[in-house]
């Protein structure tokens, strides 16, 4: 009896998914394979080769941002999970606080930090860093070129998406059964071995969802690359946007690019999850 009622609970979400996820994806697919006149075509995909540079750049920058997030996020999550509840509350607060501010405003403020006359360059200039460098190396630099570089774009991604890495990892580690760790120690494992053989494998699900939640928005972002990349580091998001809002309105090509991007992302995720499962199983065996 109980069992038969359960599917009903899923109805709101299923309806939501159908309208806002499945239907748009179907539309993207239809657009991608059709011409303005409505006929079937593969031409939109044959043009994809031209954009290889942009595809590579997007995936490379997103990958770097994800790795950096993981390197910063994992130790922090681990440390936070091991501290007392008071520390956890404060830490959580500090992580969530910036997210109360609109994403774009946060990115916009990074602009004024990284600009030529931005806060950072002013600070370096005030502490005499440039004079020091010029004196030592005989150069003549007045400022660091930061805005409009790929580094700035990666910084923007890391800054904006880091919480999405920390939260899932933290919530997995904090729930780890302490008796498992005790058992491992009991059986003679060193603390490195406990981490390597028990904690890390068990936190993999958190890592995987963290990686997904950082990588996917990073790959498709267009606001960060426009503001911090100065519009010179065109990413996939910019490329797609250009098809809709640029001079030539071409939703068909835009959809084709979006579809290819989606497929690559899904394949990446699938491989990663597969790899993750394998690890977990291997450890469990």
């Amino acid at each position, binding site marked *: 009896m109980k069992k038969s009622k359960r599917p009903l609970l899923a109805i709101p979400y299923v309806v939501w998914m159908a309208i806002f*996820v499945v239907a*748009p*994806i179907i539309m*993207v697919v239809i*657009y991608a394979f059709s011409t303005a006149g409505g006929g079937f075509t593969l031409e939109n995909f044959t043009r994809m080769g*031209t*954009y290889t*540079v*942009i595809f590579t750049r997007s995936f490379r920058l997103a990958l770097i941002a994800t790795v950096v997030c993981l390197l910063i996020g994992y130790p922090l999550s681990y440390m936070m999970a091991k501290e007392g509840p008071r520390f956890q509350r404060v830490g959580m607060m500090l992580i969530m606080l910036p997210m109360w501010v*609109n*994403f*774009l*405003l946060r*990115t916009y403020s990074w*602009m*004024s930090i990284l*600009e*030529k*006359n*931005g806060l950072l360059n002013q600070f370096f200039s005030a502490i005499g860093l440039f004079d020091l460098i010029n004196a030592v190396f005989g150069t003549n630099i007045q400022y660091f*070129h930061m*805005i*409009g570089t790929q580094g700035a774009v990666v910084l923007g991604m890391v800054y904006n998406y880091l919480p999405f890495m920390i939260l899932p990892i933290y919530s997995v580690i904090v729930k780890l059964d302490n008796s498992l760790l005790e058992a491992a120690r009991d059986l003679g494992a060193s603390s490195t071995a406990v981490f390597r053989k028990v904690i890390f494998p068990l936190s993999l699900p958190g890592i995987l969802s963290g990686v997904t939640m950082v990588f*996917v*928005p990073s790959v*498709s*972002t*267009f*606001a960060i690359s*426009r*503001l911090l*990349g*100065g*519009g*010179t580091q*065109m990413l*996939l*998001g*910019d*490329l*797609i*946007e*250009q*098809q*809709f*809002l*640029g*001079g*030539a*309105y*071409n*939703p068909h090509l*835009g*959809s084709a*690019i*979006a*579809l290819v*991007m*989606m497929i690559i*992302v899904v394949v990446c995720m699938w491989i990663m999850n597969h790899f993750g499962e394998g690890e977990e199983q291997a450890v469990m065996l």
Partner: protein
Amino acid sequence: MKRIAALALASSLATGLLLTGCSVEHVSSETGAPVSSGSGTEPGSGRVVNVCSWGEYIDTDLIDQFEEKTGIKVNYQTAESNEALYSLLKSGGATFDVIVPSDYMISQLIEENMLAELNYDNIPNFSKIDDRFKNLSYDPENKYTVPYTWGTLGIIYNTAMVEEPITSWSAMFDEQYAGDVLLINNSRDALGIALYYLGYSVNTTDEAQIREAFQLISDAVSAGVYQGKVMDEVFQKMEQGNAAISTYYAGDYLTMLENNPDLAYVVPEEGSNWFVDAMCVLKDAQNKDEAEEWINFMASTEANLANMDYIWYASPNTEALEQYPAYYEETYGEPLDLELYEIMAAPQEVLDRCESYLVLPEATRALYNDLWIELGL
């Protein structure tokens, strides 16, 4: 044409864009529709008019005044750019009555039969529009449009950061200013700059000329001339001296000048773009009468004076143009700097060397788009 607000929305959409990767819903109602609460003439008849314009492109008091006067509720929305507006109209989700596109977009919409002919009997204030702004190339018989604002595109530069006054578009390609120049992030304007410099028409459809213009920009990109491609980020960058030279609209220059007195504006000697934004009614508009009433109200001298004072874009209304210096003096108690007024409302001899954008054929638009993406590779 402040697009920051629209960009804010766009980026919040970016989060939703993760998987679908496609978004067309770029309208924000950032100005909202101020409901005139408590005023005597609360619209009981349920008459409404849906207006779509650019961000920061109206004195919002005018909306209240119009609602109070006519009892028609105004749903005021904004779009990011002509292209975003077009995308909205094409995707079919939008139900606007009045839109305020620029010249070249108007001719495209007329070409595609998307605009309704206006009944000028309902718009008596049209007679106050200066003859210079009637029967322009985008609407040669003036059947569809009532001009809203006009202005020029030019070079904004920081006098403290360049050696001598700039008079030519060559500054936009000059390696002397490498890293301090901002390119406008819009293919039509950017390639237009190069076309003016090369002495070609900005409306050329000759692929060789367009490619030559592209090469000029592309070489400048390789030489590191441009710090970036920007739209409304230009405000922050120019006001704080993060860049020395940029190309933008006269009205926006005046806004920047308030925050940085070192900035200067010039319409280069080779000529530039003279744009007109005009109000028009969509063919499938639900509220055509209300739309014409709105257009008539916005074309009045009072509305044009208030608007000109608020957005710093020149009005096409003859009386408003003549009365503005006096209006300014009365409002602020000090005389208007006529030099600034000439930047806002360029004199005829400047307009004579400027050219309006016409709609380009589809093949040329596609070429522009492809070249623009090539620049970002």
